[in-house]
């Protein structure tokens, strides 16, 4: 896991994503958002998400400053209708991100220091050999705050990219399943998935994230991740 993180993490990244939210009836809602991330010298990340479509959530933004494992992340939301930046509690990271099947914790970098990992077996997916790795929370804080008792990753052996994840609750019941596809090689042997799907088993809903554009060398710096930029008009 450490090698995977080291292999694919970058200092800065900018992505435009189209999200499709599909309910149990098959009805589809689309959202477009821009995701920006920045890795500080101490390894902690800052992230900014800005919704650009649809119109009723255009301009809504979320700013996150990752903190050390024993501290709460700082998080702010921008509400364009009120022209207001508000600090929000990040304690709900197990909960759904903006009504999607992705939880807030699914959108964050993997916290290696808060989990124990075990190599379970090998398995092939779509013709690619994969390591199957189980992850369980290893700290009291993570056990309390995470929505998952266990996660299982299928990581391609050739490029160390996660192509499938299963999420289990504290009773070892499968609650969600995620897949990544349209893997593309970017600069410096970094790989990214062009398409990510997350399905919630009980509610029979699915969210698809399709990458429309991506840059691993955007020209912003840490000063981009501030409340002032978060509240820039849509």
């Amino acid at each position, binding site marked *: 896991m450490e*090698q995977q993180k080291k292999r694919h993490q970058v200092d800065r990244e*900018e992505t*435009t994503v189209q999200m499709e939210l599909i309910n149990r009836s098959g*009805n589809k*809602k689309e959202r477009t958002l*821009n995701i920006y991330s920045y890795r500080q010298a101490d390894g902690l990340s800052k992230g900014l998400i*800005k919704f*650009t479509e649809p*119109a*009723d959530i*255009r*301009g809504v933004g979320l700013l996150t400053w990752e*903190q050390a494992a024993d*501290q*709460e992340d*700082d998080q702010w939301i921008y509400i364009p209708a009120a*022209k*207001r*930046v*508000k*600090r*929000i*509690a*990040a*304690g*709900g990271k*197990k*909960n*759904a991100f*903006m*009504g999607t099947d992705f939880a807030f914790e699914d959108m964050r970098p993997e916290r290696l220091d808060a989990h124990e990992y075990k*190599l379970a*077996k*090998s398995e092939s997916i779509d013709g690619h050999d994969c*390591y199957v790795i189980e992850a369980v929370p290893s700290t009291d804080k993570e056990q309390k705050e995470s929505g998952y008792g266990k996660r299982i990753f299928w990581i391609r*052996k*050739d490029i*160390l990219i996660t192509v499938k994840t299963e999420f289990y609750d504290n009773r070892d019941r499968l609650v969600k399943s995620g897949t990544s596809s349209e893997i*593309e*090689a*970017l*600069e*410096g*042997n970094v790989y990214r998935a062009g398409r990510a799907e997350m399905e919630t088993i009980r509610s029979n809903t699915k969210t698809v994230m399709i990458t429309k*554009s*991506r*840059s*691993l*060398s*955007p*020209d912003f*710096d840490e*000063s*981009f991740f*501030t*409340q*002032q930029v978060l509240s*820039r*008009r*849509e």
Partner: protein
Amino acid sequence: MDEETQLETAVDDLEADSDKDTEVEDPPLSFSERIASWNEKLNGKFELDYFGYFQDSPIDPVDHFIGSSLYLDFSGYAFDDFYYFVRPRFQLDNASRASDLFDVIETSEDRYYFNFDEAYIDYSSSKYRITAGKQVYSWGVSDTYKPVENLNPFDLVDLPTGRKMGVYSLGATGFWDKFTLDTVFVPWFTPSRLPKSDNRWSGNNQSQINQLSSLLGYTPVLSTGERDLPSSTLDNVQGGARLASSSLIPGWDLGLTFVQGIDPIGALEANLAPPPVVGLRQVFQKFREYGGTVSTTYGSAEFHTEVAYRDTVDNAYDDDFVEYVGGVNYTFYNFPWVEQMRLVAEYAGESVVSSKETNNFIVDTGQYIRPFKNSFLGSTEFKFTEETQFTLSSAYNFNAQDYYLQPKLSHKFYSGLQIEAGVDVMEGSPDSFFGRWDRSDRFFLISTYAF
């Protein structure tokens, strides 16, 4: 070779292999291109309001109000680095609340058929930001009442849907490692837009009558509508500053504010005419306000407080007082039958530091300002789905035991249309803050289409 060794070998191979084909990426966007990509076409929203009042009003013939508002958003970049944002607003209604055509500085007591909510240009770098034009400022951290927010007047023509009005201003913000300093300069005064005497939201004047009766010894007949607007001179210029930090103490948002301004709501000065008539003239007092804000989180809760000390300047139109709000914002997840339940609970209070005496009869400065002197403010929001939620908002004044309630159901349709339906209820004794509007309980239906 066991699997862990295979893993290590695979990683070593990847690190050694530097000749892999890579896709050519698009050139990175500049800062301005990035911001501009957030808005590439005409945007806006259309709102249609219906208010149905349960009781007739002796002063207002409109029992069924229908109003519409169209907001258009134009934004983009000019000359590479100057960002502009313009939001024109068009309003029309069946009660002639909007009856003026246009004015640069919104001084009319009537709404305008056309004006701008905001219209400004913005030049930013990583170290500073300069804005000029008509703007709305938000410095407070509370969810309901915000004592530190005094730069913008309010449109209170329809009290429950009161909204901030933009002011022409020059803003400059400096960014340092741990601090941000906002400064604002407002050269022209804009009064809050209050309900006129033929609008049921002007209230029943009972508290004013009571005050004057005890002073005069007889029950007056009030003549209202006169305003003494401050002139556009250098000594009526307003300004403010805020020093803020989100990293001085990790996990805490801290702010210190200062505003030197003119109260946009003002006070009512009584001018005696031959009895029983008393004329009430709206006068606008200068003040200085020193404030502080704090916000932090713990678990699923967000805690905040705002304190502001208001010092009236050079005159005796109002007391010097401290007003404060403290509260919590807590979200319950996995609540039965709902996705989440969000609770906002705040206490607002006031302490008079210095009572002022005046040679003029000043009545009822607390009609619209200083409304919450010992009050509970809150809301409970039940989010059934991403589209449907029910909110119960409330305010209760412990001193006079008057209150406001608003249950509201809202639903978003896939087409971008949102419908809100609910009831506004205000109750209390006739001379209490909410009780003066107890004949204005109503049903409302608000449709908003965003495009």
